[in-house]
């Protein structure tokens, strides 16, 4: 692949090419715990929702104090926090904006993700230390529009999910601005910002966070001929559906890095900590491995398998590798169960006694085969022996959510390592 003109991506060190422009890995977080996990598992930046002006009213949102705490935590790892403020405001949403933006700036957020020029202009005025990132809600699809937002003084643009690698290349060649692109997670099948199905069907405003995913419901397709409705489906056909497979670009990471894309975004503020930890740690490994030695890089089967352990829908490459065909949609199925349950988080490990202290997150019992993973360790599998509660009472099972339990494990573990169990 040829290198881009305006971006210095790799250098030769001691006869070996290395990537010097390492992209940011950007993860979602719906609450403080998820934020900390994302950072701990290797995210360079985390995007969160505040309590106002953001989509996903139900994603779990941060108070200003929580944002401040999140920022402090992230700083210890050199990570940054962005706050989504990406509604298209109605008149009634216009008050309180300036105070809110100042509060975000004071809380130490690195930037905001914005769609409405109202919020862009207010931010420039009252909170100039915040970076302004254009939200995908603006459905940015061409280099000329990228140039427009550059001239408006934005730091970064998040592209529409409908842009291909070829298209991004041309944007990068023509405009000197940071580009953020989605690599993993759920998608809108519509151009973002251009879908008001939920407004019509359920009186909930999708552009203010009210989307209820009406696109994923089933419909029947008819044609009107001579004034009569004629079904375009037969016995045994699936219903008309618009449900897209989720995005997964793990195998395109090399191309994405060589394109000089600045930030790789994982979607899903509503996702569990297990999901965030799994996805972030896998992409962390892929990005690090590629950047260290791009010319001998090979994707490892174990990474692909690991990523699948938290998937609950089928996945595809959407527009990045060219226009998606019908195989990238789902008909007659509505997601599947994840293959693994997240069953516990390590709180402590005593190297001398080999005793793990763990917070229960899902039912497990002695005799279960479980897998541990975390940023400090290679994944391993063990069979659980005897389990005790905090008072040293032996348990036949760990039944209670958040219960503190202990058991022995021969491998060294670290706080925040996670334990998962395959579902059978």
């Amino acid at each position: 692949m040829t290198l881009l003109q305006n971006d210095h991506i790799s250098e030769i060190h001691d006869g070996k090419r290395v990537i010097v422009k390492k992209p940011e890995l950007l993860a979602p977080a719906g609450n403080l715990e998820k934020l900390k996990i994302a950072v701990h598992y290797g995210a360079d930046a985390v995007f969160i929702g505040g309590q106002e002006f953001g989509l996903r009213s139900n994603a779990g949102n941060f108070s200003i104090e929580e944002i401040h705490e999140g920022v402090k935590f992230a700083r210890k790892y050199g990570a940054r926090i962005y706050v989504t403020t990406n509604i298209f405001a109605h008149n009634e949403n216009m008050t309180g904006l300036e105070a809110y933006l100042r509060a975000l700036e004071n809380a130490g957020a690195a930037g905001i993700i914005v769609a409405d020029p109202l919020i862009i202009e207010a931010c420039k005025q009252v909170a100039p230390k915040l970076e302004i990132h254009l939200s995908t809600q603006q459905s940015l699809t061409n280099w000329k529009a990228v140039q427009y937002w550059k001239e408006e003084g934005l730091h970064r643009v998040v592209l529409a999910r409908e842009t291909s690698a070829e298209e991004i290349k041309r944007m990068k060649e023509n405009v000197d601005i940071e580009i953020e692109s989605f690599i993993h997670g759920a998608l809108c099948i519509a151009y973002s910002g251009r879908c008001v199905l939920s407004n019509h069907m359920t009186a909930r405003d999708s552009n203010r966070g009210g989307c209820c995913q009406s696109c994923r419901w089933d419909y029947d397709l008819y044609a009107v001929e001579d004034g009569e409705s004629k079904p375009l489906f037969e016995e045994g056909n699936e219903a008309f559906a618009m449900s897209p497979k989720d995005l997964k670009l793990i195998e395109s990471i090399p191309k994405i890095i060589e394109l000089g894309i600045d930030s790789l975004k994982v979607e899903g503020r509503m996702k569990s900590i297990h999901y965030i930890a799994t996805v972030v740690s896998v992409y962390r490994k892929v990005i690090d491995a590629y950047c260290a030695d791009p010319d001998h890089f090979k994707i490892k089967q174990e990474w692909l398998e690991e990523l699948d352990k938290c998937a609950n829908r089928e996945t595809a490459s959407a527009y990045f590798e060219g226009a998606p065909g019908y195989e990238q949609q789902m008909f007659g199925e509505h997601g599947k169960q994840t293959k693994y349950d997240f069953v516990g988080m390590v709180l402590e490990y005593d190297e001398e006694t080999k005793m793990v202290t763990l917070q229960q997150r899902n039912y497990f019992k002695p005799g279960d085969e479980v897998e541990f993973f975390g940023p400090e360790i290679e994944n391993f599998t063990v069979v659980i022996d005897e389990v005790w509660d905090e008072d040293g009472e032996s348990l036949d099972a760990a039944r209670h959510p958040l219960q503190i339990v202990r058991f022995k494990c021969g491998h060294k573990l670290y706080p925040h390592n996670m334990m998962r169990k395959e579902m059978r």
Partner: protein
Amino acid sequence: MKKPELLVTPKSVEHIRALIQAGADAFLIGEQQFGLRLAGEFNIEQITEATKFIHHSGKKVYVAMNAIYHNDRVDRLASYMQKLSEIGVDAIVFGDPAVVMIKRETGIPIPLHWNPETIATNWFQANYWGKRGATRAVLARELSMDEIIEIKENAEVEIQVQVHGMTCMFQSKRPLLGHYFMYEGKAMEVENRKHARNMYLHDKERNSKYPIYEDLNGTHIFSPNDVCMIDELEELLEAEIDAFKIEGVLQSEDYVIAVTKCYRQAIDAYAESPDAYFDIKEELLAKIEEIQPKLRPLDTGFFFKETVY
């Protein structure tokens, strides 16, 4: 009282003649390469012809350039705008900032109307694009009457509101109908129905029918009802909204002509006196109900319906 401009979307040059007779003040035309969800296709020659005719009648013509452009189409925007400028159209309707950039770079002296559809939701944005060359903002159809009026009160640009017809609820770049047929192994249908505009999705739970079609810009899905404000125009007229649009997409030529006549009558009556309008509004509504296709119930859109989030 200042009369609002009555803007319609014709299907053909012939249709324009009839619509001028019916009382339309302005016309929105264009082609799918550059514009979204047009009632008819007008290539450059047809735009030239239509413009001559429309201007001769003292009316206005606007050209739709409100598609969501990918790089390939951006390359063609400047020459298209140049041609439109030579033809002398009265405004270009845009949603993508690429159009603003090209106008800036080339200095092409055509006024812009800002119309990104769903996202035009507050007066700040209207004025923001006003400072960047727009003389008019076309409001999202998902706004309430109160919101529209507050926007008008604070706007430094003209405000256009759709008062009649269906609205787009959804645009995907993916060819969703084609994909469905492919999935079902009906390759013939993909070809046969590529340009068809007679399909709809049936939502059994709500018993609603949503028109759907595909074109160069992807898949478009429309509202189950046609907005009809013929008997509810008072507040919009009082607020001096600058333009009323009758959307003609997926409607017949005759239907659009008849509806245009009704709105013409309503606006003229109100200008005479509010009472004159009150006297005829029920009658006008009845006229429209009479010609309304049976699969398309009328309603008042989001004018009197609140959304939550």
